């Protein structure tokens, strides 16, 4: 389970500045239960974008966007609508945005920030990883997360330590920033490499108290922890 919240509409509009036609994509998994990317939110976003003068070439909700194989098979019937768009606005967690970016040769924009659950457990994640940083950067990086794809988590570019495209820290993995470069080149957005990403607001990555106090969290506590909480 990942929790997300929609980015402010002004931020999304900024991402879409050069795009006239957009495909809006949601997810019937966590985004649906977060009320950020289920069908009602996707339709609301479509209407809002149309109100702002964008053409929405199509919209749909897939369960689940974190599974790349499903992204490909479920989007195939809508291929014409997807390919007509300049870009895709994806209303899901950071994993969903990255798996769409990996499967569709179009720029992807994150419509949500994934917020921290304070450590996710019992999940079997794919290759796309999301740190739940609460301040999604995927718009600037071709839909590949620099926090997880780069060993140092650098936001503004490579450290310069890679050799033959392999990471200085773990040569068995590719340099995340070289992957970002290749993706941005593929979707014609190399201009984004020059965007300065300001210092990150790490406080957004701390799990919020309301998340730590869900019913499930309380049930998971051991008796002594509950006692301590009661003080």
């Amino acid at each position, binding site marked *: 389970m990942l929790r997300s919240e929609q980015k402010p509409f002004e931020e999304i509009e900024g991402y879409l500045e050069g795009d006239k036609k957009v495909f809006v994509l949601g997810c019937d998994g966590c985004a649906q239960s977060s009320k950020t990317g289920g069908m009602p939110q996707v339709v609301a976003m479509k209407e809002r974008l149309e109100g702002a003068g964008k053409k929405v070439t199509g919209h749909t909700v897939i369960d689940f966007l974190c599974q790349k194989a499903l992204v490909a098979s479920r989007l195939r019937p809508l291929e014409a609508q997807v390919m007509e768009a300049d870009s895709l606005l994806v209303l899901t967690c950071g994993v969903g945005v990255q798996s769409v970016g990996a499967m569709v040769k179009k720029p992807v924009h994150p419509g949500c920030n994934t917020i921290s659950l304070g450590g996710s457990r019992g999940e079997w994640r794919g290759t796309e990883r999301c740190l739940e940083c609460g301040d999604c950067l995927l718009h600037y990086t071709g839909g590949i997360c620099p926090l997880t794809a780069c060993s140092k*988590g*650098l936001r503004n570019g490579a450290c*310069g330590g890679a*050799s*033959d495209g392999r990471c200085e820290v773990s040569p068995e993995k590719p*340099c995340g920033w070289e992957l970002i470069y290749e993706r941005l080149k593929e979707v014609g957005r190399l201009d984004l490499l020059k965007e*300065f990403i*300001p*210092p990150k607001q790490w406080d957004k990555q701390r799990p919020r108290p309301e998340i730590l106090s869900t019913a499930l969290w309380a049930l998971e506590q051991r008796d002594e922890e509950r006692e301590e909480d009661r003080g």
Partner: protein
Amino acid sequence: MVLHEALESKKFAVTTEVGPLKGTDTSEVMEVAEVLKGKVDGVNVTDQQSAVMRLGSLATCSLLVEKGLEPVFQMTCRDRNRIALQSDLLSAHVLGIKNVLVISGDFPSLGDHIDAKDVYDLDSEQLIWTINQMNGGHDLAGNELQGKTDFFVGAVVKPVSDTEASTELQLAMMEKKINAGARFFQTQAVYEVDAFDRFMKRAAQFKVPVLVGVIPLKSVGMARYMNKNVSGVFVPEELIEEMGKAEDKTAKGLEITARLINDLKDLCQGVHIMAIGWEKKIPEILQLAKLA
């Protein structure tokens, strides 16, 4: 003459670097300082180079200031968060340090404290931007400083890469670093003049001084080691052969270095000599290169 004046004067600038030792013994650094005094325009002090824990750059820079040298305070983003970085910058200013060189820093797993937590709270572009904020009288959070800093900020660039992605990223980041406030660049070590020429043809548009990195070759083994392990360093086979045939490896290493400096000289605004143990031979290199 301070470093930024040397670079603005259009004369070919010379910087070098020293690495503090692991421990409190500063005698070697002080001996090197004595040798270099008056001979170079700046002396970088490395910051926990290769992620190996040592005496700090800040304290060593301060000793160099006392000795009358012009230190360049190297700061990596690896070990300190934004609070510690900014505080160290304020400390550097009050200790009379004028120049800062910003780098990402090798990952802890490459050093001698492999279990250390990496920080990278700021990346190098963000740290450069932060220093510029401080020069303007404000900290990163926007609070006013009681007394601002006045740093001449430098950054690094890798001129020769092995992939298109790396080449293009280096140029894009160079531009981003300049926009964030970088006013000079020191480069990874260069051995191929043509490759550096190709890089400078594209980097010249930025109109920011570039000091080309040079590492004196000491042996065939060193050249092969760097080719295999150091990103962005490519020693051509001819140079390795030349080194292999030489009877006096030290003399040959110095000769090659001087020749390289002369071949690179017209392409950029200065040289940054990373002598790695040969710091006391730098006056000799400068004489051979007819720069002294």
